[in-house]
């Protein structure tokens, strides 16, 4: 009997340790979908990089509708995934509810910084700084003096993109006119390329010749329409310069991939708290490669780089829309 107990005990311990050792990370993508060429795809690339470098495996889930959020989160946590990473502010409230039920599971959430729980890591980006840089480039590249901004879902985070962009445009060309549109007020606005394309055509008819899309999968339509209409566009989150070479002026990089990679690498050792990935930390920036080399002149790049240095040193402070819900350069 004692032998039996011992064997069982050892087996149980083994099973437990094995369980911990195989705890694989998991990632949940938001409604734009894993292949939105933008925000979620950046997260996917980070996870893939981790998998390739470590040889590890991870679980993944794509949201299909709003109702799945809590269920998906619980299912992954119950299955023993650790840490669970999720992309997007929309998970904030759900996570606040779910996290206390799984005290031993670490959660990492991107684009959220208002939660306070011992097992949640939050990663926020200073999108207004990156948007300011591409805004400057838009202001310098525009010939008509009118530039456009197309946001996805109308939320403070996207207004932060728009506001930073507007400040950059005005910094480069104080007389510039900025046309702002939001795709919608529901999460479906992240994946509506048809509407994105129509909005872009509408902005072109209002004179815009550079359009910045901060709209997840909707941006695919914006960039397409801009290429069709022969005007310039600016991509977001991932490097989208290669989608329409010669038409995408640049892309505002938001290194979601690094955030996911770091979270996966730290694994269960994730520290709670808020990490801010700003310009100085390389969290945001703008993309230059062979696809847009002919569109960006040396002077433009020098001006933008100079502004970037000033932002890093604190000489230029880009107003953050989310700090007080107002924007000095644009009205939403």
């Amino acid at each position: 009997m004692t032998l039996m107990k011992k064997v069982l005990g050892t087996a149980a311990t083994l099973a437990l340790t094995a369980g911990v050792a195989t705890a694989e990370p998991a990632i949940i993508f938001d409604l734009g979908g894993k292949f939105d060429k933008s925000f979620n795809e950046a997260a996917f690339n980070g996870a893939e990089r981790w998998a390739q470098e470590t040889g590890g495996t991870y679980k993944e889930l794509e949201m299909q509708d709003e109702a799945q959020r809590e269920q998906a989160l619980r299912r992954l946590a119950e299955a023993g995934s650790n840490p669970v990473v999720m992309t997007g502010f929309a998970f904030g409230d759900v996570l606040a509810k779910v996290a206390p039920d799984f005290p031993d599971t670490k959660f990492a959430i991107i684009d959220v910084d208002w939660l306070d729980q011992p097992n949640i890591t939050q990663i926020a980006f200073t999108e207004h700084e990156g948007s300011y840089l591409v805004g400057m480039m838009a202001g310098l590249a525009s010939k008509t003096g009118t530039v456009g901004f197309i946001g996805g879902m109308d939320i403070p985070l996207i207004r932060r993109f728009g506001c930073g962009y507007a400040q950059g445009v005005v910094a480069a060309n104080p007389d510039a006119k900025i046309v702002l549109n939001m795709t919608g007020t529901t999460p479906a606005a992240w994946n509506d390329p048809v509407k994105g394309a129509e909005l872009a055509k509408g902005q072109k008819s209002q004179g815009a010749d550079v359009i910045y899309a901060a709209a997840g999968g909707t941006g695919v339509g914006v960039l397409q329409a801009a290429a069709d209409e022969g005007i310039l566009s600016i991509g977001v989150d991932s490097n989208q310069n290669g989608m329409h070479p010669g038409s995408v002026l640049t892309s505002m990089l938001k290194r979601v991939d690094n955030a996911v990679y770091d979270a996966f690498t730290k694994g269960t050792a994730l520290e709670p708290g808020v990490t801010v990935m700003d310009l100085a930390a390389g969290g945001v920036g703008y993309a230059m490669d062979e696809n847009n080399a002919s569109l960006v002149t040396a002077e433009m790049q020098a001006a933008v780089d100079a502004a970037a240095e000033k932002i890093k040193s604190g000489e230029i402070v880009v107003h953050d829309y989310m700090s007080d819900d107002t924007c000095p350069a644009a009205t939403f």
Partner: protein
Amino acid sequence: MDYATLLQLLDTTLRLATPLLFACLAGLYSERAGIFDIGLEGKMLMAAMASASVAFLTGSVWAGLLAGMAASLVLAGIHGLASITFRGNQLISGVALNFVASGVTVLIAQRLFGQGGRTPPLAGDARFSAITLPFAEELRGVPVLGPLYAEVISGHPLLVYVALLMVPLTWWVLYRTRFGLRLRAVGENPAAVDTAGISVVGLRFAAVAITGILCGLAGAYMATALQAGFGREMTAGRGYIALAALIFAKWRPVAALWACLLFGFFQALALRPDVVEAVVQVKVPVPFLDALPYVLTVLVLAGFVGKAIPPRAGGEPYVKER
């Protein structure tokens, strides 16, 4: 609102009304023959996926167009089989096909391209490009009408003009041909048609096939002209708006044109909240504009704007003998 803004709105209207018009006329043939078709949406979606995939793989938009029509015809055939041959419930069959299309399109596109159910972007000959109508530039200087012709009428992909031509053609077929007379009769009183020695089943299958072809054109237009590729659920409820337009138009082809243009205009307005605000001096919520087509349809159905009477035998499977 200045004239240039109005022209731009009308230009968008025409672009957005085209898929509605194709789908609305598609529904018209089917429903006039007594087969309710709530599956317009699913057929459009299937056609959009098939046309974008084939256009990308072959590099030819015409191959894509044919594939789109074929895919839509397959769904139409299933609907016909279920509701004509097996006398099933037409609404249930239509709804089921919508669900099937919603899932299958993403599945096939994912299997083919592995891009999350999206097809790769189409370029060059794999897309319908805009056509500039003759004299568009020369006539631009003519006051009022010149810009209207150059900005709104000219400069659309071929399928937009095909859709517009389908309206008189449908009118002619329905009201001036023997086939049209029989088609309408089979939707009102199939027993009388049968007594005259004409096949009810054959006529209804013909109508359903025309519906399939027109939905195929609608889907192909969405994926290869309006957009450059297929994306999950890209038809975004246009099949249902087309049904609403069909009721609004009281099942008549010319009225269908105006209904679709009106609903297209609402969609165009929803894209320009700034213009709406400038005209009515009040900030109108965009979802309200999105909902307007449905609100109008309910008003029509409730009898506030004339009376909408569907074909009498609509929705009823025809049983020869009891």
